[in-house]
């Protein structure tokens, strides 16, 4: 259950990225989470909602872009995806591989409702 502390880190980043008076306009916090980031999405969404309830960020929710685990073999140049986090090339057995994606844990974007547009 480290999702609670991850949710708090996300909230801290939002506070640092958006002026205090605009926090209530934040609607969506977009995240990129890799298949191997060790984060349970439902648990993170629940933690985020619980932490922002009754605060300036109370209108915000998280949107998660799930990134598959992909490796590229430097020997045969092919890319592969697997759910186990295997880094050995399934085709040539080579261990000289590079992880292309799947370990991300990032805040990518924050969407704010346009207050001026709201007023017009």
């Amino acid at each position: 259950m480290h999702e609670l502390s991850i949710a708090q880190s996300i909230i801290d980043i939002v506070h640092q990225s958006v002026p205090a008076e605009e926090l209530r306009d934040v609607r969506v916090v977009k995240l990129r989470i890799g298949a191997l980031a060790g984060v349970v999405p439902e648990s993170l969404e629940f933690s985020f909602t619980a932490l922002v309830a009754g605060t300036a960020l109370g209108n915000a929710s998280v949107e998660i872009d799930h990134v598959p685990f992909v490796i590229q073999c430097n020997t045969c140049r092919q890319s592969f995806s697997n759910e186990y986090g295997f880094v050995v090339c399934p085709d040539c057995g080579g261990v000289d591989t590079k992880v292309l994606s799947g370990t991300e844990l990032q805040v990518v974007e924050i969407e704010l409702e346009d207050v001026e547009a709201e007023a017009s």
Partner: protein
Amino acid sequence: MSVVTIHRKVLEKNDEIARRNRAMFSAQGTFVINLVSSPGSGKTSILERTLEYFNGKLKIAVIEGDVQTDLDAQRIARYSVPVVQIVTNGGCHLEAKLVEDAMVNLDMRGVRLLIIENVGNLVCPSNYDLGEAMKVVVASTTEGDDKPLKYPGMFRHASALIINKIDLLPYLSCKLDVLKSNALNINPALKVFETSCTTMAGIPEWCAWLEQNLSR
């Protein structure tokens, strides 16, 4: 809608404190290990055997991380080494800040090796860099041979794997070669040790390797 594009790592603050810890350890000349595993795999027993092996030869300090109680710190204190207990009060992992704060209470004079025993948990600690030189993961034979498949993050980030309780293999369905190949598929660079804290098998090999890393 207006959009603020930021692309920031969620755990950047922890990573920053971990870098600070790493710089402090480097300045002290201390080699730091982050010992991780599921609960009950034998981390504390391996730690005890390691302290016995290096008794009088190498000064070691220990940080114990547990959800509740200082029972592990009491076990370690019997070896007359500097030890501090971090009780996370429900927290499932150690963070760099907890280690930074704990260092204030640890007498590091002459200490060459600091072993941080993380909270027993194969998921959460893998996200949190503490500033260690290496992670060492313990997997015991009683947990089965599929642990690396279920918890790849922990095995990906480790430098060494200690397969503990090998004396129990005759009574278990766990296959040592399957466990090893699962782990090596996730991390081919893993250095693997097979140990038993009851028979002492593999303990000298593990300690000798540790000693080599210290003198590097």
